[in-house]
């Protein structure tokens, strides 16, 4: 897993891969206006892994959609890979919060949708699909339809689909929410490996504090509505992380403890 769909300019080094400046998002509906995000500024370097945690409804999904160009900020600016985001971007892999699978396609053909839309060479995408299916433990269910898969399996199919084209930026919205603890752990380990090997920039929304601390270089903790960034926590762990030993390290404990304090303070403030 080295080649990428487009030249990402590794030599650009720490150039900003994702940059949000004073972003605000307001949703106007007939009944009321909701400010989903306010004063959000964030810089994510190329190859960095950033986790986003925060209470439900604080605007995490909104933030990812901004970066993907699926939503327009009410104010402020969004840049992705040195270019202003002015519409939907395709130099990303996106895992939606709901698996968003096509009911009429089997698991394998759902993954291959990515290849078809991008007109990737058939044999390469086929091989890669088989690898991803094996890696995520979906072997034997390639030909099952989404309604024949469990919620966690559906999420894994969506994950494979987002990884298929080896995107330079990966945006993931609670990709492991419906998984059992053990599968989740295994996929966390896989994700860490993929990230190290490909130096993909990753933005991961999660509700699991341990997952955030195990995977990320930095953790963005958000406050309740209107969503603002409460604090960005640095995780002083090496990129290569063994699961069990990482959990036991003081840096890990410090990061998770701080997140708990911040989230607790956020919910106690209501």
């Amino acid at each position: 897993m080295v080649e990428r769909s487009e030249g990402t300019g590794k030599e650009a080094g720490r150039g900003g891969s994702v940059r949000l400046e004073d972003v605000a998002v307001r949703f106007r509906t007939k009944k009321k206006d909701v400010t989903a995000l306010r004063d959000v500024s964030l810089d994510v370097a190329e190859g960095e892994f950033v986790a986003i945690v925060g209470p439900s409804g604080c605007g995490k999904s909104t933030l990812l959609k901004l970066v993907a160009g699926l939503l327009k900020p009410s104010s402020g600016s969004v840049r992705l890979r040195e270019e202003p985001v002015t519409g939907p971007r395709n130099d990303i892999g996106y895992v939606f919060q709901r698996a968003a699978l096509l009911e009429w396609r089997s698991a394998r053909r759902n993954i291959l949708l990515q290849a078809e839309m991008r007109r990737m060479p058939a044999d390469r995408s086929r091989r890669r699909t088989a690898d991803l299916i094996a890696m995520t433990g979906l072997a034997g269910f390639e030909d099952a339809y989404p309604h024949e898969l469990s919620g966690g399996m559906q999420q894994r199919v969506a994950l494979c689909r987002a990884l298929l084209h080896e995107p330079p930026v990966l945006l993931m919205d609670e990709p492991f929410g419906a998984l059992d603890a053990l599968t989740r752990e295994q996929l966390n380990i896989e994700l860490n490996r993929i990230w190290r090997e490909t130096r993909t920039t990753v933005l991961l929304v999660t509700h699991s504090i341990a997952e955030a601390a195990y995977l990320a270089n930095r953790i963005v903790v958000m406050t309740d509505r209107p969503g603002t960034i409460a604090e960005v926590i640095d995780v002083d762990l090496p990129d290569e992380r063994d699961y069990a030993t990482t959990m036991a390290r003081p840096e890990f404990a410090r990061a998770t403890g701080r997140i708990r304090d911040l989230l607790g303070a956020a919910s106690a403030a209501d």
Partner: protein
Amino acid sequence: MVSQSTTSSVPVAGVAERDRPGAGEQVLDAVARSWRPVVLLLACLVLWWVITAAELVEAYLVPSPAKTLQVMSDKAGYIWHHTWITTYETLLGFVIAAIVGVLAAVLMVYSSSIERTLYPVLLFAQVIPKVAIAPLLVVWLGFGLAPKVVVAVLIAFFPVVISMVTGLKAVDPEMIQLSATMGAGPLQTFSKIRFPASLPHLFSGLKVAVTLAVTGAVVGEFVGANEGLGYVIQQANGNLDTPMLFAGLLVMSLIGVVLFVLVEFAEKLLLPWHASRRGAAVTTTY
């Protein structure tokens, strides 16, 4: 796409290959599913028979089932000829309505100005009683095939448009966003996501449309024709030939039922994934 049967045939723990049901089982299954309506139909026949056998109604008003069947077999060639004409008009009308309806729906969903222009016109065309404009169509288009097909199209078109518009609009917006993150163009998004997602809605519209198309064709025939079941019924009516009238009615309903079943069969073939068509994997339900 050719499926990689080599990888999928590797046995996986907990996944067992299922035996294909045999022909005998399938027949039993079909019987088990369809005996109720058959019993109901038979009950209606018996009721009809009792009414005529007991002479509750004059025989020239309601002929007996035996008499009706007698006419059907005596005049089989005559009935068959006119049945074929009506079926042909119905099918032609239905197919045109389906194609034009789907195209109109796509245009309306992709352009709101077209939608605003077309919707009132469509509604107007729908609320005009077809019986009332059929004579006009005959004046314009003559006694041939055309006016019958046009009436069938006019009557079958509306449910197709409405269901297809609903289907195209009901696509999960996140699916469209997904397609955008893949760099798909509007044509790809339509062919791989929007259109397949709207098929279940379209098929419910098509099922309504096909039954209405029969009515349309017959209405066209009533007004001016020398062929078709509508003509047969009018002739029989003029001659007070109630057995032939009943025979015509029966065959006409049969056309509708057969066409409906055919559309439903096509739906089953094309949309095996849809929730309304599942259930084969169920082990126990209450």
